[in-house]
């Protein structure tokens, strides 16, 4: 279909340019390198002459050449150009399709427009960039694929939602996660799991996705009005193509390992170091080597208790095809993935059916429908937002558990104390952490989704060019979370066993009606759309916690327990919200040279105050296709540039991720013993209105050397005003939560983006294509609430290592500065707010804090002495993707990079803590003798200050820049002749490696980390999270 349109275009553009000369004729056929299909309309020219022709409907051509000119050049939109020497009169050529951006279509969800005529800023990620990757959700696969899109995979927990940012952080208190639209359905995002991570986007099969259009500027996103501030991601699923039925089977198997674990002390080193610390604290030794029954030293590698090699496999089967009246795409997928973390797994079963049918010439109906069933299982990894300090968090346990104690006793029973902590072994000092083995064996967490995403639509062409479309969509997401915590060790011990089951139902229905008019009046081209949309969302949760197991026999929620609790803290909630919107957009161009676009949307949202429910949003853009100008075409530049477009846009969009009843003052009800209570629980704001984001974009797109190089450069400026801020209230006011939602504060995100695609080499059987994209980001907070009070970002409710302050980047790292270690006495030197050096001695008396002369100093204070130690948000990021093909081989090498930021490596504080915790081997360079210059203080037992556990300090702030070999894939296409005999149209096998290597100055496990997930206020924190995974896969793609 597309080919036919291109053919027609080509004929129009090139009609009359053919010149016939008398010498000899060369005939041949041009085919698609991928599937061998004939390509009609391919331009064939004799190099260095004006002689040219194009292929006919069957891909055949005949061209006359003179004796000295024997090289033919083949050009076709959407394919790589190719020059071939004509050595005989018969010449067959195959062309390789490229993802040529300029010739594509931008899909906004409500309408589509040719990229060439598009004046907004949008980037398309194609199916090829997403499929076959060992991910759970498509968003994970977007890393490094598109300018302006930053993806951070927080760690290796399966189905953990990535940090997903389009052009920076666009809110402070609300979400900065983009709006995700799947076939016109605004779907649920976020995290709905428990300790088993659950990203509802994992309910979409990456293999079903045809394209992902990422809309970035106001012109592109304004049609989504109040939901557009964080950018919009429009997903289009696959449709059947005309021709015979296509059957595809794709599968991969993979193994998954922990990447880059910190090296820990072994049992001998541990005993020696900790006893040294006790001596330094004036205490007797407390640690000793234990011998087992055979006289062997007990030495436990707790990593081996917690981690393993995970095995995964993934299968997809789809059928597609189309007749003139009907197209269909039916798919099914099964994915079963294991993490390197024991008991962490992801299983997805999914079905999709897409159908479009022309009832008549003017009426089309269709549906896109998917049903998925996903089951996430896992231990408490301690690696999801809020879990960093969970006593039972499995990421931290291997770092702190004594390596000289065995997980099991000689008789095979668990080595635990009566309170469930790891047994003492030969040590005499109590441990307050549970035995990790027991948690892995006995605790269970699951989070399962049943997710239906679908729509039905009807489209009616009223008169030529005028179409009415109505679409009804649903997203029905049911999540069932179950957990069981055992009664002998870990989080369930003090409750004598605990089970918590919650059931969440999220229902959204959306009804959209649009009227689209496309008309060409001479050289004036108009594409206008008007629409009405309303959608309604309900959120209902039901949950009950059972504690105090009746009998140790029981190991699930359904077994008998003595106590039952069901209230708001156990997952009971009910709320709803609604949107009512009117919108319109118009694109106009004159002669394809001068482009104009304007969009307006009026949104009403139930969550805002009574007088401010409606808001108006809109954007406009202009563009100039310089390459279409006659003077340019005839200039020298015109021969180099095949495309050159200048564009600019401005608009105002909104962000409204506020609570459903955020503007109201509310009282909740609870209990006081046996009596009911009602108490003030939310201070409302009757003036609460939309948060607005003013977005400016100026860009240039161009194509050089007949499509060999294509590039897009943008400058953007997102200026956010009326931020809906949870304005900090002085705690002494006693306002619940110490915040009130208010429209205060402002912030900007600015930067440049470059997306460059170059077909470096296209020679015979060898091609080399490079895509390079880079984005810069300058983020600054310019105003906050009343008096510009700082807003602290707190990691897992315990550690404040982030601050949002006017004049600085959102969520900057906030720590007490240190000045190394005093060579005289091995004490950590801090710098207080007055610039004075203060050293810390855990056993100092009368004061632990002294100036360097030994006189008593005021204690270092995390708030008062804290300073901003750098930005946690990268200043640049991007990707470098190289694709090589040689004959039947293809190789893809994907590198992602990011930098300019600092990371607060709180995990390092854990690894150097001087309680009974185990330490990283770098502790061996601790200060031991006077005059020694080192960066690690003298070890003193019980010291949780010097290395940053109690107060974050700058010794744990590290450079976060990195380049990562994210993905390497080598494929081989089996010879067509060979597979055809087996009844197979095409077959490809490949091997792929993910996270092979990282180049960084960061000292932690992985600089791509976010212990607080998608938090705006505390990004760039590494705190007791599991590492990321290194994955090797072997895969197969078969077409029938």
């Amino acid at each position, binding site marked *: 279909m597309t080919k036919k349109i291109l053919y027609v275009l080509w004929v129009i553009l090139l009609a009359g340019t053919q010149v016939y000369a008398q010498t000899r004729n060369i005939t041949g056929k041009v085919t698609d390198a991928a599937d061998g299909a004939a390509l009609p309309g391919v331009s064939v020219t004799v190099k260095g002459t004006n002689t040219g022709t194009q292929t006919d409907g069957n891909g055949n051509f005949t061209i006359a050449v003179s004796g000295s000119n024997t090289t033919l050049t083949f050009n076709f939109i959407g394919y790589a150009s190719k020059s071939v020497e004509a050595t005989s009169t018969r010449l067959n050529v195959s062309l390789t399709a490229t993802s040529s951006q300029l010739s594509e279509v931008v899909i906004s969800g409500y309408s589509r427009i040719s990229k060439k005529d598009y004046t907004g800023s949008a980037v398309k990620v194609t199916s090829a960039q997403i499929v076959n990757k060992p991910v759970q959700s498509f968003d994970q696969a977007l890393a490094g694929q598109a300018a302006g899109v930053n993806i951070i995979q927080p760690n290796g927990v399966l189905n953990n939602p990535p940090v997903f940012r389009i052009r920076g952080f666009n809110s402070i208190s609300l979400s900065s996660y983009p709006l995700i639209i799947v076939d016109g359905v605004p779907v649920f995002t976020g995290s709905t799991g428990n300790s088993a991570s659950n990203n509802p986007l994992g309910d979409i099969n990456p293999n079903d996705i045809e394209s992902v259009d990422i809309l970035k500027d106001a012109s592109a996103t304004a049609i989504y009005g109040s939901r557009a501030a964080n950018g919009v991601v429009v997903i289009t699923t696959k449709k059947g193509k005309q021709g015979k039925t296509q059957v595809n089977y794709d599968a991969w198997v993979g193994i998954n390992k922990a990447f880059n674990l910190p090296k820990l002390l072994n049992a001998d080193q541990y005993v020696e170091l900790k006893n040294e610390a006790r001596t330094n604290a004036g205490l007797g030794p407390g640690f000793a080597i234990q011998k087992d029954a055979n006289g062997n030293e007990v030495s436990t590698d707790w990593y081996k208790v917690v981690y393993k090699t995970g095995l995964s496999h993934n299968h997809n089967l789809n059928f597609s095809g189309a007749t003139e009246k009907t197209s269909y795409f039916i798919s099914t997928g099964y994915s079963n993935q294991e993490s390197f973390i024991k008991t962490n797994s992801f299983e997805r079963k999914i079905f999709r059916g897409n159908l479009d049918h022309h009832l008549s010439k003017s009426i089309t109906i269709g549906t896109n429908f998917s049903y998925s069933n996903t089951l996430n299982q896992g231990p408490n990894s301690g690696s999801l937002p809020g879990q960093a*300090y969970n006593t039972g968090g499995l990421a931290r346990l291997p770092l702190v558990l004594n390596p000289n104690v065995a997980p099991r006793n000689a008789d095979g029973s668990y080595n635990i104390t009566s309170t469930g902590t790891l047994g003492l072994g030969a040590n005499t000092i109590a441990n307050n952490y549970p035995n990790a083995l027991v948690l892995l064996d006995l605790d269970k967490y699951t989070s399962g989704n049943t997710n239906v995403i679908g729509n039905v639509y009807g489209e009616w062409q009223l008169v030529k060019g005028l179409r009415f479309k*109505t679409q009804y969509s649903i997203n029905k997401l049911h999540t069932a979370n179950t957990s069981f915590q055992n009664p002998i060790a870990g989080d369930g011990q003090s409750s004598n066993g605990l089970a918590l089951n919650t059931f969440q139902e999220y229902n959204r229905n959306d009804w959209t009606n649009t009227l689209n008019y496309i008309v060409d009046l001479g050289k004036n081209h108009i594409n206008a759309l008007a629409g009405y949309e309303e959608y*309604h969302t309900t959120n209902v949760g039901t949950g009950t916690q059972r504690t105090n197991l009746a009998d140790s026999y029981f190991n699930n929620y359904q077994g008998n327990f003595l*106590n039952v609790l069901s209230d708001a803290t156990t997952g009971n909630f009910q709320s709803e919200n609604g949107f009512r919107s009117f919108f319109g957009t118009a694109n106009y161009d004159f002669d394809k040279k001068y482009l104009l676009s304007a969009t307006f949307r009026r949104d009403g949202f139930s969550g805002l105050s009574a007088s401010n429910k409606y808001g108006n949003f809109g954007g406009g853009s202009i563009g100039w296709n310089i390459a279409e100008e006659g003077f340019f075409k005839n200039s020298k530049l015109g021969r180099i540039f095949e495309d050159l477009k200048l564009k600019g846009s401005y608009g105002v969009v909104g962000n409204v991720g506020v609570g459903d009843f955020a503007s109201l003052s509310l009282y*909740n009800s609870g209990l*006081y013993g046996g009596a009911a209570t009602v108490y003030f629980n939310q201070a409302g*704001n009757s003036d609460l209105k939309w948060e607005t984001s003013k977005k400016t974009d100026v860009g240039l797109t161009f194509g050089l050397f007949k499509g060999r190089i294509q590039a897009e450069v943008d400058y953007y400026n997102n200026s956010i005003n009326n931020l809906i801020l949870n304005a900090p209230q002085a705690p002494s006011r*006693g306002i619940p939560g110490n915040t009130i939602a208010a429209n205060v504060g402002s912030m900007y995100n600015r930067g440049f983006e470059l997306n460059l695609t170059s077909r470096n080499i296209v020679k015979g059987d060898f091609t080399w294509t490079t895509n390079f994209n880079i984005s810069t980001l300058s983020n600054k907070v310019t105003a906050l609430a009343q008096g510009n009070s700082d807003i602290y970002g707190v990691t897992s409710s315990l550690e404040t290592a982030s601050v949002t302050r006017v004049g600085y980047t959102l969520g900057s790292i906030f720590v007490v500065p240190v000045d190394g270690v005093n060579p005289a006495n091995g004490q950590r030197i801090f710098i207080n707010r007055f610039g004075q050096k203060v050293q810390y001695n855990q056993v*100092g008396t009368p004061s632990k804090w002294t100036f360097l002369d030994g006189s008593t100093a005021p204690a270092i204070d995390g708030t008062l002495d804290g300073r901003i130690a750098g930005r946690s948000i990268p200043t640049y990021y991007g990707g470098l993707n190289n694709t090589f093909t040689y004959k039947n081989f293809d190789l893809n090498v994907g590198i992602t990079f990011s930098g300019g930021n600092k990371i607060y490596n709180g995990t390092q504080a854990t690894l150097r803590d001087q309680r009974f915790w185990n330490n990283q081997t770098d502790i061996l360079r601790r200060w031991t003798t006077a005059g020694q210059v080192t960066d690690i203080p003298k070890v003193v037992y019980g010291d949780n200050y010097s290395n940053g556990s109690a107060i974050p300090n700058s010794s744990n702030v590290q450079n976060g820049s990195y380049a990562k070999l994210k993905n390497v894939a080598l494929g081989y296409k089996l010879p067509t002749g060979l597979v055809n005999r087996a009844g197979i149209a095409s077959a490809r096998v490949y091997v792929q490696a993910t996270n092979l290597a990282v180049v960084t100055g960061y000292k932690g496990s992985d600089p791509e980390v976010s212990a607080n997930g998608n938090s705006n206020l505390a990004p760039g924190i590494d705190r007791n999270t599991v590492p990321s995974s290194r994955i090797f896969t072997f895969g197969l793609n078969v077409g029938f």
Partner: protein
Amino acid sequence: MIATKKYKYTVGAAMLGLTMLLGNSCKKNLLTPSPTTSIVDSKAFDSPTRILSQLNGLYAGVKNGQFYGGRYVIYNEIRGEEFIVNKPNGVTGLDTWNQNVNSNTNEVVNLWSSAYTAINRANVFLVGLNANITKVDAATANQYIGEAEFLRALSYFALVQTYAKPYVADQGASPGLPLRLLAETDLTGAGKNDLARSTVAQVYTQILKDLDDAETKLGATQANGAFRAYKNTAIALKARVYLSQANYAKVLTETSKIITTTAPYQSPNGASKLESSIATVFNGSYSGAEALLFLPFTTSDAPGTQNQLAYYFTSGPGNGEYYLNPTGIYANDALSGTSSTDARKGFITKVGTVNYLTKYKTASPFTDYVPVLRYSEVLLNAAEAYARTGDLVNATALLYAVRHRSDPSFVFDPVAIASQTSLVNTILTERRIELLGEGFRLTDLQRTGQALPAKSGPQGSSPSVAATASNYIWPISGVELQTNKLMQPNP
């Protein structure tokens, strides 16, 4: 034929459109849904029942696990010398035990916030009740107002003792607290963020003003159970407040209202008195006459994770976070003497080589009621005030009243009760025995100007803290310092 077909499709499309229209559209309240699980402010004081629930909400605020429902009591114990840290966990008070907190330590931030939240609930309630005063009868309204004032006073008293210098250090001249007495409900309302600290003396004045008024308004008997304040509760708290000001005459003014002049010592109306057995008082769910105010818990209304007294102080059912310091009051013969017949020895349980306090012992979810005010404290307050004002006879009698309840045949060494000084010391020691684990040790040290003693255990040691040291009191919450521009940090 073609025309018919076209018509059919058009009808079909129209039907489809209509179905969608009926199925979804035009929800009338699409943009104006009402919350179903919260009550909007305009309806918060609609009925007598709801107003009573609001009153209960004030108690629930004070009972928050970060405050009187657990942690406040725990902090006052572990800052003293009676307990040794066993589990070196930053979440369960390690830095508090180490006397090493700073302005953004969770204990410091959360206690400050939860106490002020409780105060604001009282302020909001007083405004709301006044606006709906006709919905309840006058006596009930008075009782409610008295209870709100009592709880506000209790909360301010906890805060001023934690975050400001002891009154006795300089007769209250030091910076105290921001006194928030207005209902804080919105951004630009009465309060605003910035409010300077009143002096310690001004805070005490406000506390006593609230308690004086509460005394006149509260009912004379424990009509509402041990979980709500009545007249004697307010009087008892007043005595405690005066004691911390070292205003012993006033202590006696108050205690004499609720202690008869002769044995058996009890309140004149009999509403408040000692239980015959202290074990009964700590059965986990006591609500008898000794309870002037106990905070109740149930399995549906539990203290919350890592806030529970039994979780901290016992090893089974609790987590063994802190055990008794062998050189603390545990060393007293009454608690550890092999021949001691003192009933309070029964609150100590040996696990392994160390001893745990098992006054609170109810299994998970650790629903032991938290004692806020009980009658034996009133007797000891009075005894101390008598002793310090020279009335050794009455002081000794009240001391014996407490001691003999637990050890009826006990006779004090005459030397220990002979002089004023020794009698005061004996009474202070009796407080440590009687009130162990109830959150008095820190404030008793501070109101008598003593250093916080050094202590040492397997997880490390904590040096003595002089009364002049900066960590003798807690720093002001760092969040308050950031948001309240008039707030002064502690030196």
